[in-house]
C-alpha cells in the first residue's frame, strides 16, 4: 500500500495542489499586475468565450454519452441475449477497435467527413450532390460523431457485462408472472443494467470534456473545446496560472455534471422499479 500511496501523493497530490496554488498567481499582462489574487478567475468569468468553451465541452460530452449509450445498448443486449454460438467472436469484434491507435481513430474521421472524404466522394459519385459538402467537418457535431465512435468500446463492454450477469431465472419468472417482453425489459432488464450504463457513461464523459485531439483535428474554430485552450495556456500562450485556473474550473464543472448525471441515472433506476 505505502509505495503505491507515495507514488500517488507525488504524482497526483502534489501536482494538483500546485495547480490549485498556481491558479491564484497572476502573470503580468497588459491588464494585470503580477501577484496573488483571484485575477485569473475574474478574467474567466469576464470572458464569455471561455465560458462558452466550458459549456460547449460539457454539451458535447453529454451528447457523446447519450449517443454512445443509445447506440451501444441494443448491441450489448443482442450479444448478451441472442448470440449463443459466436459470442466470443462478437466480443472480440467489439473490443478490437479499442486496441487501435486513438489518434488514428480520430484522424480516420477527417478522412470520412473531409472535403474529398468517404461521404462526399460517395454522395458526388451517386449524383446526390454536385459539389462536396464542406459543412461536415470543423464543427461541434464532427467532434461529437468522432468521439462517439472513438469511445464506443468503453460503453458496449460495461453494458454487456451487466446484462450478461442477469440470472436467466429472473427473466423466466418475470415471464411466468405475466410480464410481456416490453414490461420485462422495463422492470427487470433495464434496472439491472443501469450500473453498466452508469459506469460506461462515466468512462466516456470525463475524457470527452477534456479531449484535446478531436477538437484540434475535426473541430475547427467553432468546435474548439476547453481542453485545447488549457493546453494552449501551458504551451503557446504560455500563461500557466491562467491554464491552472481553467483546469480548476473545468474540474469543478466536470465533477458537478458527473454527480448530477449519476443522480439522474439512479433516478431512472428507481423509477423503473
Amino acid at each position, binding site marked *: 500500500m505505502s509505495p*503505491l500511496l507515495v507514488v500517488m501523493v507525488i504524482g*497526483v497530490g502534489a501536482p494538483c495542489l500546485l495547480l490549485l496554488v498556481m491558479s491564484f498567481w497572476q502573470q503580468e499582462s497588459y491588464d494585470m499586475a503580477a501577484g496573488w489574487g483571484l485575477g485569473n478567475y475574474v478574467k474567466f468569468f469576464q470572458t464569455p468565450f471561455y465560458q462558452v468553451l466550458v459549456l460547449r465541452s460539457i454539451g458535447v460530452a453529454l451528447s457523446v454519452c447519450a449517443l454512445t449509450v443509445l447506440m451501444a445498448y441494443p*448491441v450489448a443486449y*443482442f450479444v448478451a441475449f441472442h448470440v449463443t454460438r459466436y459470442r466470443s467472436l462478437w466480443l472480440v469484434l467489439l473490443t478490437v477497435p479499442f486496441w487501435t491507435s486513438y489518434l488514428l481513430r480520430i484522424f480516420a474521421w477527417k478522412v470520412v467527413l473531409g472535403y474529398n472524404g468517404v461521404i462526399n466522394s460517395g454522395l458526388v459519385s451517386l449524383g446526390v450532390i454536385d459539389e462536396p459538402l464542406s459543412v461536415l467537418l470543423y464543427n461541434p457535431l464532427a467532434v461529437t460523431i468522432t468521439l462517439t*465512435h472513438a469511445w464506443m468500446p468503453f460503453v458496449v463492454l460495461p453494458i454487456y457485462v451487466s446484462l450478461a450477469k442477469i440470472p436467466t431465472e429472473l427473466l423466466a419468472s418475470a415471464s411466468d408472472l405475466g410480464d410481456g417482453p416490453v414490461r420485462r425489459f422495463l422492470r427487470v432488464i433495464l434496472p439491472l443494467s443501469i450500473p453498466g450504463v452508469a459506469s460506461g457513461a462515466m468512462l466516456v464523459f470525463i475524457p470527452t470534456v477534456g479531449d*484535446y485531439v478531436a477538437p484540434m483535428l475535426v473541430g475547427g474554430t467553432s468546435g474548439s473545446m476547453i481542453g485545447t485552450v488549457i493546453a494552449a495556456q501551458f504551451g503557446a500562450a504560455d500563461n500557466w496560472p491562467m491554464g491552472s485556473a481553467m483546469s480548476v474550473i473545468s474540474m469543478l464543472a466536470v465533477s458537478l455534471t458527473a454527480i448530477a448525471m449519476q443522480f439522474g441515472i439512479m433516478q431512472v433506476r428507481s423509477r423503473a422499479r
Partner: protein
Amino acid sequence: MTRSHARKRPVLLTAYAVLFLLFLYVPILLVPAFSFNDGTIVAFPLQGFTTRWYGELSRSPELLAALRHSLVVGACVSVLATGLGTLGAWVVTRYPLPGKAPVTGFIMLPIVAPLVVLAGALFLLVQTVGVGLSLYTVGLGHLIVCLPFAFQVMRSRLESFDDSVLKASRDLGEGRVATFLRVVLPISAPGIISSLLLTFTLSFDEFVLSFFLSSTEVTLPVYIWSQLRFPGRLPVVLALGSLILLASFVLVVLGEVLRRWRTDD
C-alpha cells in the same frame, strides 16, 4: 449457454448489430486502405496500389525511435504499475485500514480527472522541481494514469482470494517466500497478466500526457501527432498503424483462443 427466451432470431436487432459493426470498422479500415495508397495525400479517390510505405518503414529512423521509446516506456510502466497496484490491492483486500474509502478514492482520482488537467498539473510539478522533460517524466505521467487500472484489476482478482490456502501452505512447512512464489503468485497470475496487458496498452496509446511531458525524445503517439498536423510522412505512419492493428487483432484473438482452450478442458 442457451437463454430460454431467445426463441427466434430478432431480425431487426441482428441487422442493427451488423450496421453497428460497420460504423465501428469502416473508419478504422481506412487506415490500412490508405496505407496501400500510391499517393501522399490521404483523400479520395485512391491513387493505386503500392506497398512502398511498408518498405519505407525501415528507412524512417525518427518513427522507429518513437516506436522504440513507446515500447520501452510501456514495458517499464506496465511492470511498475502492476507491481505497485498488486501491493496496494493486497493490503486493501486483506487488512482493515482506517480511512480505506478515501484512500482508494484518491487512488482512483486519475480516472475521473480529465487527462489534460492532470497533464497540466504534472507539467507544472516537473517545471517547478526543475528536472527537465524527458522520457522519465513521460513514464511518470503514464504510471499515474495506469496505477488506478492496475489497482482495480488486482483488487477484483484478490478479493476472492481465500486466506486458508496461506495457512495450509504454512502448515505444510513452507516459508513466506515459498508461499508467495508457489501459492500467491499462481493464484493472482491471471490478474497480473491482464493488468500488464491493460496498462501496456494504455501507456502505448497515451497521447496527451506524453505531449505535455516529452521533449526531443517522443513516443509514437506524439510522433504520429506531428505527422497528422504536418503530413509529410503520413502514409508511413498509416502503414505502421495498420501493422499495429494487425498485431493487436492477432493478440486479442490468440488470447481468446487460449482462454477458451484452457477453460474448455
